């Protein structure tokens, strides 16, 4: 029953976001013809398409390929013996591509569980200023993960479907000023296979992310994703604090986090470290963008 209610709420949430976006857009289009002042879309709410582990409301742009290399090291309380956790590394590499200004697709692979992931990210409502402006952006993301690591024996009990997990996410975000942006991103995750009979296949979380610009090229970011329901027993809420550093076509995101997971399934259901007990890891996201298709001159 509980699961059914969650499913209904999930669909309603997605539909409401989409329809509200459409209604708003139509109103804006109607007004556009009568007003000579053009509306301007708000850009650079975040420096990257990710805050730390969560997607941000930002897009990479049409025809742009974003090569992403992510690392999470061991806990820093190792001391010098393990070079503050650097001896231990989890990584994900991925490729995001902008099919449009408000449409991105991406794939990636993490070494933990040898897991592939993919997503489609679409922005039906884009924050804009001017007479037709809209105060915030709405972004929809859908994606899935595929475990390629072997299951434990006896393997014949497992099917391909058990390798899959799916997530749906809505981001509602606003750039309040040049120096401050914030977003809420509820996430629904469904795992086709969970370990225990009492474990919930569905997990609900509410991501909260923010960015405070420090200088022209650096910003402080917070990415916190409390689990609201369906928590995997023994896991904690993922939390990351970090700095974005922009250098030319690169964005370095240096951060401290308790989560080793770098896709939605992983960070929502396998974060066993407790940030507040000092079980913190250093990590970085390296993003390098390449313009593959130049803008049309028409």
């Amino acid at each position, binding site marked *: 029953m509980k*699961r059914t209610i969650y499913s209904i709420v999930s*669909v309603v949430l*997605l*539909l409401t976001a*989409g*329809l509200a*976006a*459409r209604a708003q*857009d*139509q109103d804006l289009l109607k007004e556009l013809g009568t007003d000579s002042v053009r509306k301007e879309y708000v850009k650079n709410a975040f420096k990257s398409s990710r805050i730390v582990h969560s997607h941000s409301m930002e897009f990479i742009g049409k025809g742009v390929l974003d090569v992403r290399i992510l690392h999470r090291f*061991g*806990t820093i*309380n*190792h*001391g010098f013996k*393990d070079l503050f956790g650097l001896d*231990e590394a989890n990584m994900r590499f991925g490729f995001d591509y902008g099919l449009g200004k408000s449409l991105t697709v991406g794939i990636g692979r993490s070494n*933990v*569980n040898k897991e592939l992931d993919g997503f*489609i990210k*679409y922005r*039906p409502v884009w924050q804009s200023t001017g007479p037709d402006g809209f105060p915030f952006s709405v972004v*929809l993301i*859908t*994606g*899935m993960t595929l*475990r390629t*690591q*072997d*299951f*434990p*024996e*006896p393997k014949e*009990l*497992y099917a391909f*479907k*058990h390798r*899959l997990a*799916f997530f*749906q996410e809505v981001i509602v975000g606003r750039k309040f000023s040049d120096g401050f942006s914030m977003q809420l991103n509820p996430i629904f995750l*469904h795992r*086709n*296979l*969970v*370990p*225990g*009979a009492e*474990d919930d*296949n*569905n997990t609900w979380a509410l991501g909260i992310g923010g960015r405070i610009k420090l200088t022209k090229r650096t910003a402080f970011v917070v990415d916190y994703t409390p689990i609201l329901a369906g928590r*995997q*027993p*023994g*896991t904690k809420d993922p939390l990351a604090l970090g700095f974005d550093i922009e250098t030319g076509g690169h964005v370095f995101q240096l951060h401290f986090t308790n989560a*080793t997971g770098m896709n939605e399934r992983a960070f929502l*259901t*396998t974060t*066993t*470290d407790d940030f507040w007990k000092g*079980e913190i890891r250093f990590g970085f996201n390296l993003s390098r963008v390449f313009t593959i298709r130049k803008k049309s001159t028409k």
Partner: protein
Amino acid sequence: MMKKVLITLSVCLALLVGCTSDKEELLNPSGHDCAGVNASFVNDVWPIIQANCQGCHGAGSTNGPGPLTNYTQISNVAARIQAAVESGIMPKGGGPLPSAQIRIIRCWVNSGTPNN
């Protein structure tokens, strides 16, 4: 505009159609059923921890939950050990533990982490 929204929603729904809600414990009951399993810390759990965990979680370790070198240390973080081995994130570097060993850890935790 509407077309794009509909395409996005269709993809979301198509992905949800591929969903099942299986539980490993029910899929492989013999590997999870703790009835009749009297998991002993000394004879069953300790050898697993010794062979698979103490490389990184030895004396003085500050990795994750720290050292796993005696009963108190292990029982204090038993639920985390269970979550880590069930999800496959531990042991680090190797594949997942055999299901028989995961079952022993699970049954030992479920029975209240006895020091037996």
